[in-house]
């Protein structure tokens, strides 16, 4: 066990170092930065959904909450360290409260999806209707539909004048993603993670074995939200503006799609799905022959029909079949069907 952990960590570090070195040669770092941020956002849902079995329609709420918390705190404080911390904490606390409300109420499946969806919509509608001058937090106008531009962006801790932007900012984000990825790996290998997977597979059995299912789900949900919040804060720094669109239903759906396309139940899949689809969108915008909405839609449909398990598991099993059965076979991870009636 100890050796295999080390093995995993080393492989992760080597691969990510290679990627961080090679990718900027092909894609501009500015675009890469947002791909990395989306990757982190994908990972956050990949964790709670793929490993915890919690289908969250509202991951965008935590993303947006992180971004807005950062923007508002940065305007009021003027130095980026504390706002970054707050941007992780506020979504986590919010998720813990929401999660506690849902999981202690034994909400599951689609019902859980609807609650998270509804909470996202409430946040979206609220932020969207704050255009008036009466909506102020400290010095920060919430700005409604137009969002908040012009806040202090990331600086070297303690020195507000030393901005981190451009290439260095990409490296900051990339390293942050690697750290988060390693933390997620560690979490999943810990007993907490194993029990979480157990709860995903059979909640009743785990409950009967004496595990406190509701608390564990709440904690996992909050961890996912914290990661999404961090991604949100990084996104705010990258775009230098936050708008209510971050909370939108479309954004939430996109995160879900990233996870399915990349491969649910893997750590790497959601990251690949997020970065890949976001880059695809970026590429599509450079042509004007066909309507881009149409192209994106077609790709999604074809994907579901022909590659239903997602990219990463498909590639993994392909490699497996080529290089023989020495590696352990990826477990088929199918979501349980919603049970009704």
């Amino acid at each position: 066990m100890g050796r295999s952990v080390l093995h995993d960590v080393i492989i992760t570090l080597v691969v990510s170092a290679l990627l961080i070195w090679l990718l900027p040669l092909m894609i501009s770092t500015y675009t890469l930065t947002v791909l990395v941020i989306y990757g982190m956002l994908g990972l956050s849902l990949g964790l709670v959904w793929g490993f915890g079995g919690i289908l969250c329609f509202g991951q965008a709420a935590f993303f947006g909450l992180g971004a807005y918390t950062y923007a508002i705190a940065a305007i009021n404080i003027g130095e980026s360290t504390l706002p970054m911390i707050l941007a992780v904490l506020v979504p986590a606390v919010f998720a813990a409260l929401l999660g506690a409300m849902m999981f202690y109420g034994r909400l599951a499946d689609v019902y859980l999806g609807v609650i998270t969806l509804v909470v996202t919509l409430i946040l979206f509608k609220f932020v969207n209707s704050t255009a008036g001058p009466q909506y102020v937090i400290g010095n920060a106008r919430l700005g409604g539909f137009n969002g908040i531009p012009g806040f202090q962006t990331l600086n070297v801790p303690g020195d507000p004048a030393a901005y981190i932007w451009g290439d260095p900012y990409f490296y900051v984000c990339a390293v942050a993603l690697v750290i988060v990825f390693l933390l997620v790996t560690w979490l999943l290998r810990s007993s907490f993670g194993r029990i979480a997977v157990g709860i995903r597979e059979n909640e009743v059995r785990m409950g009967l074995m004496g595990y406190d299912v509701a608390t564990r789900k709440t904690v996992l949900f909050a961890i996912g939200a914290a990661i999404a919040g961090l991604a949100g804060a990084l996104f705010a720094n990258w775009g230098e503006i936050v708008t209510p669109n971050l909370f939108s239903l479309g954004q939430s759906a996109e995160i879900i799609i990233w996870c399915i396309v990349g491969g649910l139940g893997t750590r790497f899949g959601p990251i690949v799905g997020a970065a890949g689809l976001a880059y695809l969108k970026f590429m599509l915008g450079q042509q004007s022959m066909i309507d881009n909405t149409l192209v994106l839609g077609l790709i999604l449909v074809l994907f579901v029909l022909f590659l239903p398990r997602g990219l990463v598991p498909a590639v993994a099993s392909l490699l497996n079949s080529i290089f023989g059965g020495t590696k352990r076979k990826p477990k088929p991870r199918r979501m349980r069907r919603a049970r009704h009636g």
Partner: protein
Amino acid sequence: MDLSFVILVEVLYGVASLVLISAGLAVVFGMMKVINLAHGEFMMMGGYATITAVGLGVNVFVAMLVIAPLVVGLIGLIVERLVIRHLYGRLVDTMLATWGLSLVFIGLATMIFGNTTTGISTPIPGFAFGGYQVNGYNFFIIIVSIVLVIAMYAVLRGTRAGLIARGTMQRSDMAAALGYSPDRIYMMTFFCGSALSGLAGAVLAPLVGLVPTSGGAYIAKAFITVIAGGPSLIAGLVSSATSFGLVSQFFTFAISPVIGEVALLIAAVVLLRTMPQGITGRFFKGKL
């Protein structure tokens, strides 16, 4: 007195329109466990079908009540054969596929109709009640949704086709063993669900500014209404549409339309928290 009548009409209209926009989704989700995220786009296409038909000289009521449901039903049928059929039992995959489809439909509608398609005026004039003008078309919507609910109940309860459909949804293996092809029944159900979505879009078309992206406005509301309704198809639909419609219209009139919408959402949270299996998971158990 005049005012309370006007408000009563508006409240009834609020409930009726919720029933209308959720019915198609309720059939598809309630009976097949398929979440059709392209539901809003089906409605959008119903609207365009109506406008096109009226433009070709068809009577507006025929266009709304016959042509639009048929056209959208057929589109649904094609979608079911090409895509959905491969995905039964895979809730999440159908979501992704239908989300993709919704984008495809938006793209297609933009290419075919552009962004400024002239709508159709309401075929029923407004009238004065006391000191107030009332939208006469609201009554039409209320009547359509009442008829719709009764018809759905009659079909499911009273006809052999309804019985077979219900049986298949509960135990498709048993239905197959008795000689009914689940494949064909799913197909017909999806056709009906799509046709209902098309009908809703068509009936609402004279009241909204129809653009290819209009569908997005409905999907969340319909989804919430259907899920909060719970396992019983018709009782769930009617009870949740009534509660949400009442709550949202009350706050709309008391404060503002925005607060009305937020109240609806908060009501959904409270409702699902207290009744985790939806309204009919607790009340009206075993009803249709």
